[in-house]
């Protein structure tokens, strides 16, 4: 198996989950209703659990321990897309990000369930069951709010328009793309994107929201190769804050 290709894919998957997990956790105490504090917190926990499982796979392939990999790298060494690092903003943005992201993740892990790399396939089959709940949650709220007051519809539409270019960054290919597909590790970003578009359209069509023409949008790329927004490094510093008080300690 092509290890470089495999690791490249695993880093992208793990970093996305790790960073969005942290962002989701910031909704504690701030949600519009208590149920949403809890929902975002649950999804955050799941996502951190997912990233840990993926870092463990990397560890088995010779990379450092999960805690070291997750909490000691700096922004340029991260492979997450820029979508996940944006601050939580208002609820409409976080909801739309969650909707666009989790549809992609569910489809991604469904496909990975067939991966030629069996350890990854096993993890993927496990995570799929949890992700189903995330998508269910996103769909429920997008359908509810997306067909309610003018105010809510306008907010969601604005967030959708703003977020879609970042969401397209989820499907940014790396130089390993061909190898990943050729080895049967993953179906590839283009195939995933096609499934994703169909999947989100099916939900949006049940709301008053308009899906912009994806062809004319410019995807926000760069995250997969270490180019990030100004928001990532401060989050990473926060994540490492306690470790840095005494780097010799076991925390």
């Amino acid at each position, binding site marked *: 198996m092509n290890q470089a290709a495999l690791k490249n894919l695993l880093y992208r998957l793990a970093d996305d989950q790790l960073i969005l997990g942290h962002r989701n956790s910031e909704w504690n105490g701030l949600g519009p209703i208590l*149920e949403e504090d*809890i*929902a975002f*917190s*649950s*999804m955050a*926990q*799941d*996502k*951190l*659990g*997912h990233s*840990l*499982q993926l870092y463990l796979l990397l560890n088995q392939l010779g990379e450092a321990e999960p805690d070291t990999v997750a909490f000691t790298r700096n922004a340029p060494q991260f492979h997450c897309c820029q979508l996940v690092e944006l601050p939580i903003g208002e609820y409409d943005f976080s909801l739309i990000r969650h909707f666009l992201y989790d549809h992609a993740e569910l489809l991604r892990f469904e496909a990975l369930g067939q991966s030629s790399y069996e350890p990854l396939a*096993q*993890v993927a*089959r*496990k*995570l799929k*069951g*949890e992700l*189903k*709940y995330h998508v*269910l*949650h996103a769909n429920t709220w997008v359908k509810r709010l997306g067909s309610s007051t003018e105010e809510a519809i306008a907010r969601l539409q604005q967030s959708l328009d703003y977020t879609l270019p970042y969401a397209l960054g989820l499907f940014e290919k790396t130089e390993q793309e061909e190898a990943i597909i050729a080895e049967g590790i993953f179906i590839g970003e283009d195939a995933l994107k096609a499934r994703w578009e169909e999947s989100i359209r099916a939900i949006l069509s049940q709301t008053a929201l308009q899906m912009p023409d994806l062809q004319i949008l410019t995807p926000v790329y760069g995250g997969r190769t270490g180019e990030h927004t100004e928001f990532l490094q401060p989050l990473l510093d926060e994540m490492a804050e306690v470790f840095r008080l005494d780097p010799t300690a076991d925390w």
Partner: protein
Amino acid sequence: MTPILTATTMDKPTILTWLEEVKDPEIPVLSLVDLGVIRDVVLQENGGVLVKMTPTFSGCPAMDYMQRDVERVLHAHGVENVQIEMSFEEPWNTNMVSEKGRLALKNFGLAPPPVYNQVLDLDILEYATCPYCNSQNTEMRTPFGATLCRSMHYCHNCRQMFEQFKPV
């Protein structure tokens, strides 16, 4: 002093009985065996015991404590060499919760997870039975409860919220 047991004096059913003592840290009436996270116990030639476990939810912080409790209980029964293998080979789902476990959950005030066939359709969440009054006149409030494994429901009959161990 506890006698040191070896593979010749203990067998799998005995070990499983011992493991009944290990409970879910947040649901003190449910053993790990009944929860379905202990998938197998293998006696090893060197007298050690290998316990094969699979996590419920990948982000569940209780898994860590469950592992340690398994070790502690087996040590207490004189098994010196305990090995734990966490694997996703046979991923956990709620159909693995035993009948005994379901009953324990209900008595604890948690609606047990509905059993499903092969593919889980989440519409099943709408049909929870209230663990307090057995009414099916209930509705799901949110698929995310206080812990990862629960959804929140409301019973129109006895007018209170209840939690369900949610199907996965």
